């Protein structure tokens, strides 16, 4: 008799549990709340240092690229996807004339950015929608890669960096 009672008790208890589960899902269904990001309409801000696109820094004040065509990036590139040419200007300094980066072979390793000694190449966070309709569109020249660095992303003056490094070194000791 006891086992018969527990049989029915089990069934009723199980049925109640199922009802509780259904009520939870139905509550969510009726609330119509969404927690997902609706991508093309909403965009999440990426971290400043995320590697989305390689850009050639353009100095708006001097009206020229920072690049001096030293070829360090082209040498550092493992896939040789950077081609650039430069000429010596009237002031005796070399300036870049053409800069071509083939993003169809680029692996975004960042060696070119690291190799650049003149603060001319950089990763940009916000331009991460890099798909194109034609393969040829992946070959970008200096006009396509032109990027003026906004003020809040400008590098800190050298003294400040040195002071910071000294203070962290002290803290480390």
């Amino acid at each position, binding site marked *: 008799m006891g086992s018969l009672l527990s049989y029915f008790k089990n069934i009723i208890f199980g049925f109640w549990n*199922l009802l509780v589960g259904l009520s*939870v899902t*139905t509550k*969510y269904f009726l*609330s119509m709340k*969404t*927690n*997902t990001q*609706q991508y093309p309409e909403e965009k999440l801000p990426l971290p400043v240092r995320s590697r989305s696109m390689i850009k050639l820094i353009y100095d708006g004040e001097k009206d020229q690229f920072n690049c001096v065509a030293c070829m360090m990036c082209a040498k550092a590139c493992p896939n040789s996807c950077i081609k650039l040419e430069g000429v010596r200007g009237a002031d005796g300094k070399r300036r870049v004339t053409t800069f071509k980066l083939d993003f169809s072979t680029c692996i975004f390793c960042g060696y070119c950015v690291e190799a650049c000694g003149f603060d001319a190449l950089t990763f940009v966070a916000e331009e991460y929608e890099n798909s194109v309709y034609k393969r040829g569109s992946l070959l970008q020249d200096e006009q396509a890669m032109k990027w003026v660095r906004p003020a809040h992303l400008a590098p800190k003056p050298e003294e400040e960096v040195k002071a910071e490094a000294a203070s962290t070194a002290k803290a480390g000791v």
Partner: protein
Amino acid sequence: MVHLIANLLQQALGAVGLSGFAFIINPIVSAVVMFGGISVFVMFLVWMERKVSAHMQSRIGPNRVGVFGLLQTVADALKLTTKEDIKPVHRDKIPYYIAPIIAFVATFAGMIVIPFDKGVSVQNLNIGILYVISITSFTVIAILSAGWSSNNKFALLGGFRSAAQIVSYEVPLVMSLVPVIMTAGTLNLNNVVEYQQKAGYWFVVPQFIAFLIFITSATAEANRAPFDIPEAESELIGGFHTEYSGVKFAMFFLGEYIAIIVSSAVAVTVFLGGWLPLPFLGSLPIPGFAWFVAKLLFVIYLIMAFRWTFPRLRVDQLMDFGWKVLIPISILNILITGFCILFFGKGV
């Protein structure tokens, strides 16, 4: 509407001197109307399922193709029909080709006795309930032959599981309908609804347990989660339809959704009063067909909510649940209903 078209076509046939063939017009028109209507409804259901599941999981679901993503299923169907039809080399040819056709036709044929409105059904069979149950259980042949002929161990396992499942859940499915048949004294679906109209209550009130058993076993019959062990994605890839692609897969898919429609339609007709309006709302100028579809959508929502709420049963749990819970309780239900008919002259 259907009769109007049929009459017009019959007159046209008579005009060209072929009135001898007039008898084929009615079935053909009904078949075309049913096929078109059901296909569109299935497309709506697929969209609805995706929306229901999305909102249950705090997502939005399809919203790109058409208004609210309503045309998403059309796009999916187009994709399926233009896909390459990949066939396993060592398949058993004849069952491999026949299986999707049976899966589709067997469930689709169940639709013809469903009364959508007062007296509106393709065939007013006097053994309607028996017909629906027997014709829809043909799907087990389709699933078993699909699993066998694919020459794939996952497909075969899915087929075997499905055979075990459908055979054991057929029993409580039928037994949950028996009390209603005993009370109403008819197997005709139209008459069952008319009995409910005369009696003034729907069968879901006195036979609530039977309704629950019917919904549960109908979910199992349609191979829906939580009883989807024949196709169990995480264990068997796709179960019996692992080796099917393109149009053949679409046929299985269509068959699965039509099975849901058929069993929900039977549940609505038998337990929820078919085309009858909701209590106290009978005076509203809403046609019976609209009431029927509204109830149908409610039952289909229930079945969808099952899928997105409950985890899948293990094979032994499935058998336990079928044989140790559903069948004893439905037998008890039949016994109690029988006693009530004997002592009080009518069902509880």
